């Protein structure tokens, strides 16, 4: 009964899809020979794909509905697993040891190519954690985050070019300049929320990129800046391999530092204020929290990480140009935060690793990256609206013994 119904609906969907894709999939005008090709085979393929896609999707949804009705105890959710591991001391120590072992042995076990991919993934981890402050904690939808990344990268490149400033000096400078630009953006958008904020920040990101692209005298335009030195280690001359490994460990250190700081911030007076701001802006102010100050700290602290990420990015690639800082970067970083789990540190880390490493290893699909991102986002929002590892906030618990 239900099956025949499903088949009927799926058939309908298939026909509908064939009709929709008819103009692009079937008809092809060959402009050279001036003839029209009819590719009926494509139509058949679309029909079959549509039918099975729809059929599978439907059964999936039905199962999900069933699952929601009576929460299936057999399905182990990732979040529960993570909680179980972090809850149990022995398990969590073991997990930490395994992760640490992997992290340390990674550069010695894998090729240079792999290490480089891992480094960019780690940079995205850092960016994701930074954006998480703005989007996940303070609830401010920022689509121009890449601007601060660009600012950091260009700060190092230009400071080095003009004044010969080295990586280690540029890193804190990048952080400060990032924070400064964060406030610069934050100030005019203090009154904006939600979609409006997203649009304005997106514009800000594009403005920065356009400036870098067109102000040749300042940034050398689209041709970018080359010969940016890699990070130095007490003036040692390092081979490419050595220096890549060095950057790898530097990045591991930076990520740990970021996690430490973000975690502390999250569970502090300021972190509480961010969450309250996200929950209800008016009540938040009425309870004595300075909205402007709280928002600006969120923007500034988020941008700090992007600024430092930019410096490291410039040092890693030794060449930067505006093409590395398009709106898509912002979107990817936002995807990392949303997919990983807004407000959740473990979630953002795994989100970054999944979203950056997967496309690298699935080179065959790299052209469809955005498409795959889109599909994953939609599917995730349906099945796991909280992200891969949703935020299980460590709330302030009151225990009587504390007296």
């Amino acid at each position, binding site marked *: 009964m239900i099956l025949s119904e499903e088949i009927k609906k799926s058939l309908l969907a298939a026909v509908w899809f064939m009709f929709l894709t008819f103009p692009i999939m079937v008809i092809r005008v060959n402009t050279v020979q001036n003839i029209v090709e009819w590719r009926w085979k494509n139509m058949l393929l679309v029909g079959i794909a549509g039918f099975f896609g729809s059929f599978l999707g439907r059964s999936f949804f039905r199962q999900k509905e069933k699952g929601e009705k009576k929460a299936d105890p057999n399905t182990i959710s990732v979040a529960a697993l993570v909680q179980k591991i972090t809850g149990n001391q022995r398990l969590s120590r073991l997990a930490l040891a395994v992760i640490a072992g992997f992290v340390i042995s990674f550069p010695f076990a894998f090729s240079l190519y792999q290490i480089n991919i891992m480094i960019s993934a780690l940079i995205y981890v850092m960016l994701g954690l930074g954006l998480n402050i703005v989007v996940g904690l303070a609830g401010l939808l920022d689509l121009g985050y890449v601007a601060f990344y660009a600012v950091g990268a260009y700060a190092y490149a230009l400071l080095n070019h003009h004044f010969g400033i080295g990586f280690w000096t540029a890193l804190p400078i990048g952080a400060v300049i990032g924070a400064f630009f964060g406030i610069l953006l934050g100030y005019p958008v203090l009154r904006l929320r939600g979609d409006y904020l997203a649009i304005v920040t997106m514009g800000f990101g594009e403005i920065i990129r356009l400036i870098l692209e067109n102000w040749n005298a300042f940034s050398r335009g689209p041709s970018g800046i080359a010969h940016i030195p890699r990070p130095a280690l007490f003036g040692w001359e390092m081979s490419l391999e050595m220096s890549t490994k060095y950057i790898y460990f530097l990045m591991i250190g930076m990520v740990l530092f970021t996690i430490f700081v973000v975690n*502390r911030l999250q569970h502090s*007076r*300021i972190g509480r*204020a961010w969450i309250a701001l996200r929950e209800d802006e008016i009540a938040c102010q*009425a*309870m004595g929290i*300075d909205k402007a100050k709280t928002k600006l700290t969120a923007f500034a602290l988020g941008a700090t990480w992007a600024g430092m990420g930019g410096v490291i990015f410039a040092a890693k690639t030794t060449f930067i140009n505006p093409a590395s800082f398009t709106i898509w970067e912002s979107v990817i970083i936002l995807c990392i935060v949303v997919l990983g789990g807004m407000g959740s540190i473990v979630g953002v880390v795994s989100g970054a690793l999944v979203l950056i490493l997967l496309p690298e290893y699935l080179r065959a699909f790299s052209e469809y990256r955005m498409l795959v991102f889109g599909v994953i986002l939609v599917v995730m929002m349906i099945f796991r609206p909280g992200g891969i590892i949703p935020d299980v906030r460590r709330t302030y*618990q009151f225990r009587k013994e504390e007296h």
Partner: protein
Amino acid sequence: MEPILAVKNLSMNFGGLRALDRLDLDVNQGEIVALIGPNGAGKTTFFNCITGIYTPTEGDILITPPRNSVQRINGLKPNTITELGMARTFQNIRLFPKMTVLENVMIGRHCRLSAGILGAVFQGKKVRKEEERAVTDSYAVLEKIGLAQFVNDLAMNLPYGAQRRLEIARALATEPFLLLLDEPAAGMNPQETQELNELIVRIRDTEKISILLIEHDMKLVMSLSDRIFVMDYGKKIAQGAPREIKSNPVVIKAYLGEEFHA
């Protein structure tokens, strides 16, 4: 003695609509004062004006915090006014739904704490002490208000009456000298209203906090208040002790068509 809150000639225009029209109102130390009036009279607008959410078009709002001199607070930001010692609740409950009851109250403590970014990152001894104090102080407030049993629950999971009381607890945590309650009894059953009545009196008597409340429940207003102000269409139409208000023909006329019984 100076009134702790003195509002003079306050007007608020929304475009062409005059929501408050040259309103005068004052609250003395230790008083429970009620502000009543038919729906749309402008009571909530009045609260929004004196707590900095709106900037009034005209008039003066003067406060005299204990051990302090008179201060004009027109146009100050809401958080500054809260810091000066006026805390409020909202007619349509505005808790932080996804924070726990304890955290909601801790947000109220925010303006009395001082840890900054560096403090949060390094968590030195002073900051840790401060956080511990914030937790125990917040818990103490919850105990006073009778919400201790819910301490670790999410605010959104609280029963309605408890949510209303949590708003009061959160406001109390800011250590106000004047508490502004916007329809605290709305949606409460008679027993909850009775408890609220006792709670408000207790806050005034033991915490020495003065109270200005907006309320439609006339029984509660009449039994609680020392003085009552009545508004209609943004204007003050009467003021006085409960007994005088009850028999005031102007007030009865303003409430005509609505229930006015006490």
